[in-house]
């Protein structure tokens, strides 16, 4: 028996009955579709809202807490910072590149919706072991996806054309849809009228406009996937000719390509590059394919190759990457965005003012991503691969235009509300803005600019086409906004008006196709499933880490830990993102936190994401606390005062008691730390269902934190600076190797208890660093985290380009414990000897234990107790730490 429609759409019987009762009738298909996305976990927070109430959300400097597009914090001088983090986990597992790219697009629009200019992005990524080929593919895909939105990679084959003098860039499918009549199920060709297409002239070897004559659409039963050594993957029909080198230069068909062949790809259009074929595999899948016939030449140009730069002009300034087997099937891709604005120009996502106009701006609406929000709320299974169409296609070029257009439109004073159109597109943006303001809306879907012909009201309401925003514009002042939006070459479409009755009424071709209370849509049912403590917790916690043997060779052990991809430099990834555009970035990626100046002031903001899933897996409560505490230490290590948190909570299925227990415990830990340290949580996102049939991800709450430094000249960085400086360890070291990187790398164990947390000690240690930074007595400050003191020392040496001579106590803690323990509330500082007494005085006042452990100098890291333990040159350290990820990716 076929499943009932509501089930197909992901609603439960209970939810269906509830809708029926509230409406007093059977919902129609459009309405059911609307409920299915807004009542999905992704939009409705059905299983999490109850627990999220534990979070502290207020402080005198918080202007906007959770519930809006983003949280907002006052940073003085009438300026404010908007911040928000979001996940794009599921799409990235299926189609890494586009998934990651849309992740950035969506979060940027959330910040824009607050009326602030996006000034920085941070990526928090979690992958399986880098030894797995699939993980490498996903990692490469996600990184270049971000650098595409960052840097423009090809999405679909797009072509550039001119019609009636207008230039545009659209997908070849879109071109076909414009000219081919509606029946989609037959192969067709259509004549093109007044279309010129950008082409490549083989004789003159230059780009030119050529008249396009015909467009074709046919079905191909199978494809060949060619992977080349330049990292390009081509999907083509077996008969598609490729220029190849085999007994001279010839065109040969894709189907007859073999591994090792040299093909020439028009990646650089002017100079086709030779590249070797690594793999040829056939794909038995029926799909539509398209072609265009061009006057004189067949070489029309597609949006080719990998293009340059940070397209949206927002730098990616920081982030972190962890590798752990649990993420193999389900990588985590979280992106945080930060915006800067003026308090008096802040916007809200509210549909205020009866009679005001509801305007859709940005791209046209297509069929992409339909029911993507519902897709994000189911576990990944074998059928996920067939879900590729549910991943939206991102276009950074339009996104950048949208940023400028919306910010300029807000300046006209005619805009009263702004909302991102992300998950569940028109449905969510209209119902959320109306529900927040207690109003209703009447929408006319005939006014929505469509990319494809014949879209149904269901499809229009649920489309997740990217680069769209909803504006609520003052009645009578529409022209001002229209002028601005159209100047930027974007659609301005008045699609409805704000009404007083609280009803979202949708019309299509003169008929009402949906009529639902906006509040009902916005208020998904809440569930409070019973938490069940998983059996593994006690079992793994009982693993004893007290009697681990001391290593024979400490040099070898340190090298091994430094080469772990969790510890090694992530330069390979962040070099592929533009982290400098906007010229605000003062501390570049690779330090504890990124630091951005606020132009025109002496202020700076520090930002950082953090979250060790392994700690949370082994003890969710403690792990939750550490996520907050460590992010705070990262911020303090730059000299900034932590101010606020945005978070992204990545967990398995909330319908399982064990996950609920992990979730509630982690939240309890985070809430406790955030309250104690007085760092409110102002926005966030929950991502459930991060599991496949074989595996569930480590519960991974990621904390994105913002800090403020009043005088940016007092900033601190992690690298040692001057020979002769004293090296100081702040905080106590306990023999805590449970859950550590050392235990995993050297003993192959993920077990034991994560380090203890004492929030009072955390608070005091942070205070010590922030106050000493203000006094200007420190040369460097570095948080001690994964890999312990030994890794922190090695990093401080490498980042500073100078060595250090360190002496550690011989007892009571054995050297390997002292060096690799991940005890909390610790920092590594260096300072000139003449300032030591001032630091000591301050430490005593604050009751923070400090120890002098050596001095900066030379070009080796030298560590001894009663004998020499470690002696490695900077070069030895660098060659593993800096290049280990690059080597793994390029092998």
């Amino acid at each position, binding site marked *: 028996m076929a499943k009932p429609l509501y089930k197909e759409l992901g609603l439960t019987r209970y939810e269906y009955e509830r809708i029926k009762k509230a409406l007093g009738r059977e919902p129609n298909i459009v309405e059911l579709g609307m409920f299915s996305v807004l009542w999905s976990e992704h939009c409705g927070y059905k299983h999490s809202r109850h627990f999220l109430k534990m979070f502290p959300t207020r402080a005198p400097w918080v202007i906007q807490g959770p519930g809006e597009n983003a949280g907002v914090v006052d940073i003085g001088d009438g300026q404010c910072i908007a911040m928000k983090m979001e996940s794009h986990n599921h799409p990235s597992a299926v189609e890494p590149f586009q998934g990651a790219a849309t992740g950035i697009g969506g979060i940027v629009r959330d910040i824009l919706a607050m009326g602030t200019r996006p000034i920085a992005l941070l990526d928090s990524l979690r992958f399986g072991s880098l030894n797995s080929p699939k993980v490498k593919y996903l990692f490469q895909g996600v990184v270049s996806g971000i650098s595409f939105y960052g840097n*423009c990679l090809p999405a679909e084959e797009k072509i550039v054309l001119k019609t009636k003098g207008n230039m545009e860039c659209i997908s070849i499918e879109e071109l076909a849809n414009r000219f081919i009549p509606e029946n989609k199920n037959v192969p067709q060709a259509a004549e093109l009228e007044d279309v010129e297409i950008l082409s490549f002239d083989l004789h003159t070897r230059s780009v030119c406009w050529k008249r396009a004559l015909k467009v074709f659409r046919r079905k191909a039963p199978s494809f060949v996937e060619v992977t080349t050594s330049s990292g390009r993957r081509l999907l083509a029909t077996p008969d598609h000719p490729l220029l190849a080198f085999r007994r001279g230069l010839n065109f040969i068909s894709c189907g007859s390509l073999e591994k090792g062949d040299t093909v020439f790809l028009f990646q650089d259009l002017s100079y086709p590059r030779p590249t070797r074929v690594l793999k040829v595999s056939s794909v038995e899948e029926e799909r539509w394919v398209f072609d265009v016939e061009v006057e004189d030449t067949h070489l029309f140009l597609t949006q080719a190759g990998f293009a*340059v730069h*940070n*397209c*949206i*002009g927002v730098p990616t300034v920081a982030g972190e990457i962890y590798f752990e087997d649990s993420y193999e099937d389900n990588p985590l891709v979280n992106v945080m965005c930060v915006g800067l604005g003026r308090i008096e120009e802040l916007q809200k996502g509210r549909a205020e003012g009866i009679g005001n106009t509801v305007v859709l701006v940005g791209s046209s609406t297509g069929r992409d991503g339909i029911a993507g929000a519902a897709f994000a709320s189911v576990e990944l299974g074998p059928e996920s691969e067939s879900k590729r169409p549910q991943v939206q296609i991102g276009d950074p070029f339009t996104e950048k235009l949208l940023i400028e257009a919306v910010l300029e439109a807000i300046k006209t004073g005619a805009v009263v509300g702004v909302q991102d159109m992300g998950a569940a597109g028109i449905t969510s943006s209209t119902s959320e803005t109306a529900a927040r303001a207690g109003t209703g809306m009447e929408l006319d879907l005939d006014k929505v600019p469509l990319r494809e012909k014949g879209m149904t009201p269901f499809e229009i309401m649920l489309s997740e086409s990217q680069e769209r925003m909803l504006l609520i514009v003052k009645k009578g002042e529409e022209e001002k906004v229209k002028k601005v939006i159209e100047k930027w070459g974007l659609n301005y479409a008045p699609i409805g008006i704000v009404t007083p009755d609280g009803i979202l009424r949708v019309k299509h071709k003169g008929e009402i196709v949906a009529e639902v209370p906006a509040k009902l849509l916005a208020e998904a049912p809440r569930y409070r499933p019973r938490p069940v403590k998983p059996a593994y917790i006690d079992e793994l916690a009982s693993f004893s880490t007290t009697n681990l043997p001391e290593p024979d060779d400490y040099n070898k052990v340190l090298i091994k830990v430094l080469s772990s991809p969790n510890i090694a430099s992530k330069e390979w990834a962040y070099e592929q993102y533009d982290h400098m*555009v906007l010229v605000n970035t003062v501390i570049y990626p690779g330090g504890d936190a990124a630091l951005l100046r606020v132009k025109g002031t002496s202020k700076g903001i520090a930002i950082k994401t953090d979250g060790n899933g392994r700690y949370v897996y082994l003890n969710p409560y403690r792990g939750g606390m550490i996520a907050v505490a460590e992010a705070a230490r990262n911020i303090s290590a730059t000299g900034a005062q932590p101010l606020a948190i945005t978070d992204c909570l990545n967990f398995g299925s909330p319908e399982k008691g064990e996950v609920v227990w992990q979730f509630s415990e982690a939240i309890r830990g985070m809430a406790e730390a955030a309250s104690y340290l007085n760092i409110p949580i102002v926005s966030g996102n929950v991502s459930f269902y991060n599991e496949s049939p074989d595996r569930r991800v480590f519960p991974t709450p990621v904390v994105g934190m913002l800090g403020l430094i009043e005088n940016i000249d007092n900033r601190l960085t992690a690298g040692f600076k001057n020979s002769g400086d004293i090296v100081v360890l702040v905080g106590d070291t306990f023999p805590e190797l449970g859950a550590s990187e050392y235990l995993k790398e050297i003993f192959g164990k993920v077990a034991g208890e994560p380090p203890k947390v004492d929030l009072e000690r955390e608070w005091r240690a942070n205070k010590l660093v922030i106050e000493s930074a203000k006094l200007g007595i420190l040369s460097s400050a570095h948080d001690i985290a994964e890999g312990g003191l030994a890794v922190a020392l090695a990093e401080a040496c490498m980042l500073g380009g100078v060595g250090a001579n360190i002496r550690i106590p011989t007892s009571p803690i054995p050297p390997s414990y002292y060096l690799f323990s991940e005890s909390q509330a610790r920092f590594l500082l260096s300072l000139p000897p003449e300032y030591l007494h001032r630091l000591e005085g301050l430490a005593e006042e604050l009751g923070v234990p400090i120890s002098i452990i050596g001095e900066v100098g030379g070009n080796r890291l030298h560590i001894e107790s009663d004998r020499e333990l470690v002696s490695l040159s900077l070069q030895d350290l660098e060659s593993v730490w800096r290049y280990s990820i690059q080597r793994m990716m390029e092998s």
Partner: protein
Amino acid sequence: MGKIKFAVVVFPGTNCDMDCHYVVKEVLGEDADYVWHTQEDLSPYHCIILPGGFSYGDYLRTGAIAKLSPVMESVRKEAEKGKLVIGICNGFQILVEAGLLPGALLKNTKLRFLCKFVYLRLDNNDTPFTHLYKKGEVLRMPIAHFEGRYFAPPEVLDTLERNGQVVLRYSSSEGELVEGVNPNGSLNFIAGIVNEKRNVFGLMPHPERCSEKILSSDDGYRIFKSMAEWARTHLKEL
């Protein structure tokens, strides 16, 4: 003469426009206007900046569409009159596409986008853009591009070298042209060139990202300063 007037050309997709504008106005203290790509008259400016970005989405070869836009005709006209034109990163690509500078910029040999600081050797200080530097001086500037591998046929390269048109080369911190210092595979380590008349300059590194000490290098500042000073002594009041 009063303040020197800079035009910062904005194509759809340009994203370093604000940074260039900021450096000229706030750091250098001269005048700067944003100029939309549809503008047909650039005569009211002494200096023209084509900033970095991804003009027209780089949907084709980078810079290939931008060269067709109306503003490029006026850039050409002003260059012919002897005004100063500087193209940074994507701006360099546009100048090359438009034929104002010779050669081509191809994808980096590693086929990856690269954003990092590099060392550059200044090989010609006898240009309006570099007269405040010493010849042979080593500079530290960031690059951020996917397509920065300078390419030209041998005869063009010969001409460039003979005429001293190669202004900047990737180098070691000591100014040596050795293995490992060329981030993108550019021929002859080329990072920046001028035209024969020396009034059109294209470079891949971003001087606007290193014009203040707080950004960890201010080695780019003197490029803008050189332009302003040269314009003040050599160009007419507008």
